[in-house]
């Protein structure tokens, strides 16, 4: 093994990040969770087991997350398949709009939902008026509302993951199955689904963990539905820090169990491109079906578009004027003018851009060697290492922020005297850890689909390891890596719960500005920032997709 030094170098980088960024801060959570009033004890866990409230919260979080995954998979998956295999009027437009919810960070999505479907929201009042009811037929609280927002925000993970996978699929396999006499169903279940497995697993993981750790939705309309993240937050506010840590451990264990379960006996490589076959998109012939497809498409687009449009509408509404009307009664440009001409306007936008770019760039640089290590080699403790890199994603943002801050708040033996609290750098570093799984997962999913033989061929033809890496492996996985990075950048741009704990004046992000505008009753200004954030995220995802397709075109 003459590549050994290179692997060891890669491994050293991965170890460094995992130990300082993940193990060390989270170990302190584990230790704290086994203490009660400073003394070693199981009291926190006893409290969890004996408290019907916390148990109910845990149960709610769990089944809501499972339902979120199932719902998102069905909706996102069928949309991806529909747009990929069928040709019908408007298909291009629909498929371009499908990933739109990714543009709205959780906080903004939830706020838009409230203004749309909330008790005094636009759609609710419209329905009340049209049907002459006294109350809207639904209430935006409890588990139903949380599930609705979750599916709205997360189906796009399935949609993008599956679409990307479908684009890179080796269709000769499907053709082969058909020629050998397999039915449509057999092709779907025996050939297509197994080929899509990495994408499905990746999207399920992100969705499950995201929804376990989801905070904005239960926080803003949880009300009667206790959720684990909410209980952690309440315990912290009630000065029961140790209980909060024990509850966080429960949450992390559930999320990580899902990770272990979903990635069990994962195959190293599946098929891979061996021939050339172009996607055959079947045009729908029957006019009835054509109309039906169009109808379903339009309804879907309306549902997708309503929240961002609401945000846009409110950004033009006059503050304080909208009380009992269906739509805001008066409109103004003042919100935009105020935001654009205020002296400190650019600062949060600029800060968010810089920090997210740093974090996403670092995550990409880290993910390339790390995903290679995790898929192309096998070594003792590999699985543990993979799981550890996912921990920052599995933990609720508040806990991640506090544990990280508490580990780097003063010079200690373990942090080598590195004090990050109160500096600009703590936020980009936390963003990096938090979004890393996004990039790593999509890079890994890509790498798993690529035939190892391509690399072997390059090596046997005399190319060195690095030459092969540069000219074969990296170009092949770059589409996935870049679209993952764009997604990671978008996530970091909208990050709120962790930022609020440790930002300093020089790293004040957009999300904080939005929250602060909302608190000051400046709904319009908050919406302006929300629109701006959505546009920035949109541009970054489009650029990401452009780069990714630019790459994948060369792969055929």
């Amino acid at each position, binding site marked *: 093994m003459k590549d050994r030094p290179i692997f060891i170098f890669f491994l050293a980088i991965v170890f460094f990040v995992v130990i300082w960024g993940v193990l060390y801060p989270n170990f302190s959570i584990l230790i704290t969770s086994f203490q009660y009033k400073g003394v070693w004890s199981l009291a926190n866990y006893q409290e969890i087991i004996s408290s019907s409230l916390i148990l109910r919260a845990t149960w709610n979080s769990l089944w809501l997350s499972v339902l979120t995954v199932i719902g998102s998979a069905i909706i996102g998956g069928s949309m991806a398949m529909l747009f990929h295999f069928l040709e019908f009027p408007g298909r291009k437009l629909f498929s371009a709009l499908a990933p739109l919810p990714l543009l709205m960070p959780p906080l903004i999505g939830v706020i838009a939902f409230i203004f749309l479907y909330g008790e*005094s929201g636009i759609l609710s009042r419209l329905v009340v008026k049209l049907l002459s009811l006294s109350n809207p037929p639904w209430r935006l609280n409890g588990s139903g509302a949380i599930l609705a927002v979750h599916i709205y925000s997360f189906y796009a993970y399935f949609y993008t993951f599956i679409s990307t996978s479908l684009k890179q699929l080796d269709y000769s396999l499907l053709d082969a199955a058909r020629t050998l006499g397999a039915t449509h169903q057999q092709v779907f279940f025996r050939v297509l689904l197994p080929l899509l497995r990495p994408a499905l697993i990746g999207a399920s993981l992100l969705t499950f963990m995201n929804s376990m750790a989801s905070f904005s939705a239960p926080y803003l309309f949880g009300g009667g539905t206790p959720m684990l993240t909410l209980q952690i937050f309440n315990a912290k506010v009630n000065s029961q820090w140790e209980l909060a840590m024990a509850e966080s451990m429960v949450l992390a264990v559930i999320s990580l169990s899902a990770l272990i379960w979903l990635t069990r006996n994962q195959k190293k490589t599946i098929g891979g491109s061996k021939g050339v076959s172009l996607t055959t998109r079947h045009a729908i012939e029957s006019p009835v079906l054509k109309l039906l497809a169009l109808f379903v498409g339009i309804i879907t687009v309306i549902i997708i578009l309503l929240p961002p449009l609401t945000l846009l509408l409110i950004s033009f509404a006059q503050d304080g004027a909208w009380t009992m009307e269906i739509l805001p009664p008066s409109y103004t440009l003042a919100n935009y003018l105020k935001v654009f001409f205020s002296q400190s306007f650019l600062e949060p936008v600029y800060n968010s851009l810089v920090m997210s770019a740093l974090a996403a760039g670092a995550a990409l640089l880290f993910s390339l060697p790390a995903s290679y290590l995790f898929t192309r080699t096998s070594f003792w403790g590999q699985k543990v290492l993979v799981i550890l890199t996912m921990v920052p994603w599995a933990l609720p943002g508040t806990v991640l922020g506090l544990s990280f801050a508490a580990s780097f708040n003063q010079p200690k033996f373990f942090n080598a005297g590195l004090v990050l609290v109160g500096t600009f750098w703590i936020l980009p570093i936390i963003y990096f850890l938090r979004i890393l799984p996004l990039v790593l997962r999509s890079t890994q999913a890509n790498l798993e689909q690529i035939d190892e033989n391509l690399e072997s061929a390059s090596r046997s033809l005399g190319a060195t390891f690095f030459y092969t890496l540069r000219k074969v492996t990296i170009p092949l996985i770059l589409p996935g890596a870049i679209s993952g990075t764009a997604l990671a950048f978008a996530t970091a741009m909208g990050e709120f719960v962790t930022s609020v704990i440790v930002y300093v004046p020089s790293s004040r992000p957009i999300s904080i500005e939005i929250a602060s505008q909302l608190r000051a*009753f400046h709904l319009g200004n908050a919406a302006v920032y929300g629109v701006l954030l959505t546009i920035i995220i949109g541009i970054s995802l489009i650029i990401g997709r452009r780069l990714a397709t630019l790459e994948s075109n060369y792969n055929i």
Partner: protein
Amino acid sequence: MLKLLALTSIKPLVFRLISLIVISSVLFSFATCKKDSRPSLLIYSPHGTELLEVMKTRFEEKHPGVVVRFLDLSSQEIYDRVNLERANVQADIWWGASAITFSKAAEEDFFEPYHPTWAEKIPEIARDSQDRWYGTFQTPEVIVYNQVAVKQEDIPKDWDDLLDPKWKERLIIRDPVRSDTMRTIFGAMILRQWQTSQTPDAGYDWLRKLDANTREYTVDGTVLLQKLARQEGLISLWDLPDVASAINRQKLPLSFCIPSSGTPLVIDGIAIIKGTPQPKLAQEFYEFVTTEENLLLAARDFYHPPLRTDIDKAKLPEWLSKIEIKPMPVDQALYKTNIQDWMRYWDSQIRNQNNR
């Protein structure tokens, strides 16, 4: 083979792009890290950007060359932050939180003692015996209602009026677990009936009836007042500065009344953070925002009644002299030792019990 040939041509583009992103972001971040050489003060405060902006401008006018920066945070967020930043102190002043929060923070050694020039003008209970924090404002809690939807004869005058079954599903309340204001009110409701039985049971019963009338617990005070304005609920309990500000500055169709049997007054304080990089300047800011002139300004434009006893009643703004505030005595020691347990009980045994 075709594939490999094609790849060589686009490889440089990819690498150039990646390195461009990395290098430019590193450069950007260095650009943001540039230090302003002027002495600067950092204030942590929940008092809202408008009040802070006014004080910042006025202070900077008086002290040319000094930069005042502030972070607009909730008092709970400030507590977490100051705790985390002990080894690398960032803020100089913590302006705004209840006396309970301040005394908890003082016990954990968050503050640098400072004896302000007006120390003797502050009542005993509104200051720390070791000068670690002092009260600045006193905030009465009020009953707030939608002016359009609640009829004149129906306006609730006192706490117990809120329990009237006619208000079923008409109350919306700020989620009390995370709110100093609501904890104070709930605590006061329990302590009000403590004398008779020395147990919280009577208070719990009262809160249970309140829960029965409550439609929703909102996430913060702003959402609460907006929902009242939009008639999702008609009545609530909240603090006077926020309510008066919503009525007069945001023009929300609300009105308020002070409970006739008396209302708890929350003492709102100020303190210098231990290890402040600018102790001298911090003291000047401390004194500056508590001068009679600035206290009157805060009272007039931002509806914070001052605590200092030496302020001429005649100079107080008109709105303040018009209303009658009857303080409700709250046993601070009892409150401090029990409020956590009470809120836990409320959260698990009372919240939403009637809706299930």
